[in-house]
């Protein structure tokens, strides 16, 4: 029979070998995985600005074609970094960690957020990345604004693990298409964000309907998460938007 000592030694050695193999694999494959994630991110940014024909193969190329500037804005709305030359995927704005920046915001510290400026056939589009919490995990996306920094060109949402058929519907075209043409400021210039309305926008007064979309039936918490994400993130961009809107 095997002694206890043998069993412990055996288990220890096995686990150490397994750990070594796995961490080596992780290190070797990390660059490929990060590249895939970057490509996916570019695809979403372009998709929010309604640029068609982007796939995993041409995403980097198209991203460099369309994105003309990457801006970093701070909590006061000042532009602190503008990146125009070189490869867009190397820009500081593209690499910034939204989660950390929004965490700093929640702690009341200074933060920096990225904006992507896209030139789509002469039309200037500003894309703001979004990040928030759904029911089961993080949700994120992008919002593309026209050069009035008010009207929405398009949005994309994605999620880590919302319930399929319910909360996960935020990633569908039907939900996202509702945002097209909506406005984040009212006629008096007050910030309204976009409300995700339970029961549908038809329950809102006529004037407020341009600032709302229908929530998802059965996906209440995720819908609230989208609503909170929009108001929280857009609010962080507000100083910048206010400054550049009035021109």
């Amino acid at each position, binding site marked *: 029979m*095997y002694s206890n000592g043998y069993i412990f030694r*055996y288990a220890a050695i096995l686990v150490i070998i*397994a750990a070594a193999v796995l961490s080596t*694999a992780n290190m070797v*494959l990390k660059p*490929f*995985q990060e590249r*895939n994630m970057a490509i996916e991110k570019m695809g979403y940014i372009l998709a929010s600005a309604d640029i068609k024909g982007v796939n995993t193969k041409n995403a980097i190329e198209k991203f460099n074609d369309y994105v003309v500037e990457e801006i970093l804005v701070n909590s006061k709305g000042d532009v602190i970094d503008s990146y125009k030359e070189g490869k867009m995927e190397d820009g500081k704005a593209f690499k910034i960690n939204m989660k950390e920046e929004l965490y700093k915001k929640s702690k009341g510290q200074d933060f920096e957020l990225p904006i992507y400026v896209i030139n789509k056939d002469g039309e200037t589009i500003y894309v703001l990345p979004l990040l928030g919490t759904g029911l089961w995990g993080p949700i994120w996306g992008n919002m593309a604004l026209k050069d009035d920094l008010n009207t929405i060109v398009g949005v994309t949402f994605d999620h880590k693990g919302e319930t399929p058929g319910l909360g996960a519907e935020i990633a569908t075209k039907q939900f996202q298409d509702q945002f097209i043409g909506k406005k984040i400021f009212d006629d008096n210039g007050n910030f309204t964000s976009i409300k995700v309305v339970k029961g549908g926008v038809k329950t809102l007064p006529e004037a407020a309907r341009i600032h709302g979309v229908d929530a998802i039936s059965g996906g209440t918490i995720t819908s609230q998460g989208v609503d909170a994400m929009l108001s929280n993130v857009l609010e962080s961009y507000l100083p910048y938007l206010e400054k550049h809107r009035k021109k």
Partner: protein
Amino acid sequence: MSEEKQEREPLFSPKNLKLVKGPINLDNPITVQVLGICSALAVTAKMKPAIVMTISVMVVLAASNVVISLLRNGIPPRIRIIVQLVVIASMVILVDQVLKAFVYDISKQLSVFVGLIITNCIIMGRLEAFAMSNKPWPAFLDGIGNSLGYGLILIIVAFFRELFGSGTLLGLQVVPPGFYNIGYENNGLMILPPMALITVGVIIWVQRYYTRELIEENK
């Protein structure tokens, strides 16, 4: 499974070939042993994920079978299940990392199911029943055979579900667009897991009809 030690057996002796062929029909892990049903229902809505899942299971099963078979004389029986789990889990994580690096789209579709290969009973079953008491080469063939049997059913189910549920095969439109104009509709039910179970049931029925050996005696 016999365990006699033979001298210099040819690599593809009839006995070894049987290890590959057996699980495809007479000893099929899904339709005969009814193992691994959960993943068979989950990843068969489209053919592409089903094929990737098959390849992943094949890699995991064949590799873990070989590793366990190499270790079989040193594994203390009291912790053998733990050792098997460590081996399977490491293999699954490796496969998951490789998928994430090279076929990111599909790895997103398969999401949790790759991780759940760890709990696929076929794999633990083969390690415990076969690899623990056989040499590496037969163990390798056994792994390939069982994952082929598993994958065959997965792909058949996915074929019907994708054809009737989405009108496509491997993402290509096969139902002519004209059909939709004269009132043909994709069957939304085929996309949902219950129809996968029913499809598996039909496959079992057809298989038993043609394979008399599988029919139990009526008492």
